[in-house]
């Protein structure tokens, strides 16, 4: 009897194991797999779009799976390595270099050309974000750049003028100083003027860049005086002027701070439209939007987007492509915009679907922000790793333990050492 029970238990485990393999890891030849991730509302929207495609194409078999965004690259690359990856996958633009450098994504240039996709309607940076070494590997479903949110109540209460479309870093500092307030006069700030977001926006708007090309290879550009001035301005916001709440280093997202815009403790939150899903329900104060302030070299901000890609070894590339076209088409991106989650990647749809009359804040700002100089980080596999080390070195300046010159000199050395190592390994750069 014991043996029978044991046998039955083992058989059940085996059946479950084989079943799980069949269902999840071995898509049948005629069943296309699509991986998406995002907020619950976005996931719901992706499902809705997929259902619509299914209704219009009842003979096409596919399965849409909502996967955790944080581990999607890990799962995807492991699956690609093992030869069992989803046919279609949603990727953030900062994951593109990692995945496309493996050569496992299907180039889309020919398909885009063949089917007459109106690439001219896309913001060019959106297509660049999904390109790697000159080839297009994905199409964005949403995309936008860095802008500002400001607490109108605080501005009104302390008699500070709202940001103008042409406002500058100096004005940002001036307003932030006025809005860094010790409400109860206990010697501690209760409201901070601004949360400055990623340092890259300041380096670029200051006329600098992190890397430059020299003799056909990347070298550090952190010895450029314009980079120094931009980093100095950024660090001064935290350390000298104390108009921004301290944070545990530049690596972390500043929104991890307990001083948040939502709590009414940050007057100017430099961020992007991807914050709207959180901010749209704020009823404690009124807020509005403004463009990123101009630096010495104008307004140069960082792009952010999410897009669809296709696995090179998909058994049904045509069906995958057809589905991707549907998922990033104007109907889908307009629906995404209506959700308020982010801006459509196409100019025409952005203006038509994202700008609304029924909200007290201006979405026009987000659309306009895309008309300025929108930047990307170098689309290289090693960039994210290198950037982390750079920021680690700059943390000493952020904490006031080193001067900006000292921290930059160290970051400059770190960057060149890192790049030397990468080139010595003979990686395909």
């Amino acid at each position, binding site marked *: 009897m*014991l*043996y029978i029970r*044991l046998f039955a238990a*083992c058989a059940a*485990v085996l059946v479950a194991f084989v079943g799980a393999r069949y269902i999840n890891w071995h898509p049948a030849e005629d069943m296309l797999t699509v991986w998406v991730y995002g907020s619950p509302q976005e996931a719901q929207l992706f499902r809705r779009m997929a259902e619509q495609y299914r209704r219009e194409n009842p003979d096409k078999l596919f399965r849409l799976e909502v996967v955790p965004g944080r581990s999607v*690259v*890990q799962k995807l*690359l*492991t699956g*690609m*390595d093992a030869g069992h990856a989803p046919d279609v996958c949603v990727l953030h633009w900062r994951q593109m270099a*990692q*995945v496309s*450098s*493996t*050569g*496992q994504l299907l180039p889309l240039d020919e398909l885009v050309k063949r089917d007459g996709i109106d690439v001219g309607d896309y913001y060019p940076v959106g297509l660049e974000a999904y390109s790697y070494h000159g080839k297009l590997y994905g199409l964005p479903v949403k995309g936008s750049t860095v802008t500002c949110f400001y607490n109108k109540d605080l501005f009104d209460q302390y008699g500070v003028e709202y940001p103008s479309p042409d406002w500058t870093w100096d004005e940002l500092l001036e307003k932030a100083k006025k809005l860094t307030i010790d409400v109860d006069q*206990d*010697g*501690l*700030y*209760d409201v901070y003027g601004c949360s400055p977001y990623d340092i890259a926006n300041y380096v670029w708007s200051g006329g600098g860049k992190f890397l430059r090309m020299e003799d056909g290879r990347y070298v550090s550009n952190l010895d450029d005086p314009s980079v120094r001035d931009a980093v100095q301005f950024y660090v001064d916001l935290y350390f000298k002027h104390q108009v921004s*709440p*301290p*944070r*545990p*280093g*530049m*690596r*972390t*997202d500043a929104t*991890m*701070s*307990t*001083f948040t815009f939502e709590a009414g403790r940050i007057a100017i939150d430099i961020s992007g439209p991807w914050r709207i899903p959180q901010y749209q329900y704020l009823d404690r104060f009124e807020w509005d939007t403004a463009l990123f302030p101009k630096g010495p070299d104008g307004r140069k901000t960082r792009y952010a987007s999410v897009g669809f890609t296709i696995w090179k070894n998909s058994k049904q590339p045509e069906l995958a492509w057809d589905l991707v076209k549907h998922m990033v088409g104007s109907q889908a991106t307009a629906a995404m915009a209506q959700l308020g989650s982010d801006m459509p990647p196409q100019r025409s749809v952005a203006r038509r679907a994202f700008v609304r009359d029924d909200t007290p804040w201006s979405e026009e700002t987000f659309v306009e922000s895309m008309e300025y100089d929108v930047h990307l980080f170098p689309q290289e*596999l*090693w960039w*994210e*790793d290198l950037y*982390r*080390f750079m*920021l*680690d*070195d700059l*943390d*000493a300046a*952020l*904490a006031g*333990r080193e001067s900006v010159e000292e921290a930059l000199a160290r970051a400059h050395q770190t960057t060149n050492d890192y790049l030397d190592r990468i080139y010595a390994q003979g990686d395909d750069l």
Partner: protein
Amino acid sequence: MKRQGRAAVLFLLPNLLGFVIFTLGPVLVAAGMSLYRYQLATGTPSFVGLGNFADLLWFDSVDGAWQARDPYFWQYLANTLFLMLNIPLSMTCALLLAVLLNREIRGRVVFRTLFFIPHLCSGIAIYMVWTMLLTYEPNVGIINGFLWKLYHIFGVTGADAAALLPGWLIDERWAKPALIIVFVWASAGGFSMILYLAGLQNIPPELYEAADIDGANGWMKLRYITIPQLAPTTFFILVTSVIGGLQGGFEAAYIMTGGGPGGSTTTISYYIYTQAYQQLEVGYAATISMVLFALIFVATLINWRYGGSRLETS
């Protein structure tokens, strides 16, 4: 007897199969992979022998100074070892809590439950709450708020008081001690305390009675009866904590500091993750894993050699 033996094997088989397929197999594959330069999903591994180990551990002489080929590995290893200082602190706290809870005090069950609660809570929730507690600004961070008030009582105010506040999560010098405090808080009342409690209840009461007759005080009883009698428990907790400590630290650092400031809370496990899934260098990540495995192995051997032999002696 033979029949019982077969049944035992059958009962062990599922676990054994799981171990071979999901643990031993991957470990062996990782060991092999550490000898290759292998980028995930590119499918072209190239044999480099011990090249990855040399790149990870070797020092080169540059202008007369020794320079690590991979300085980050050494920095993150030092971080990991520093963070492991929480182990003796956690064990001491767990022992003290267990000794207290082993006494006939009112509300013992309530206290036992309260101390164990951190172990039942989600790590993310704990780290988020501690992030708020350790916030630098005294009007938000409760700990610095308390210090701020304390300084004021002693007449230290304004910038002088601010200069004396620890920069918990925002200062390289304080970030690791801050994480150690969190680890001690989270683990002192956990399984270590429960194991110590079980160990305490197994100590024969006659030993304490004999000590009472000999006129031993509380400290002497703790020093000469409780601690030696708990040696097997201490040994078990130490071994498992050292293994966990060398592998851990990722979650707290990821949530509370993002590995910063200045990489001061980045641990080896975080480095393995970024090498494998951000740089796609799975061969190199496997090499780091093997070195970590060797460290754990050596640490456990040392524990067995000294802790184990003392146990046998006692």
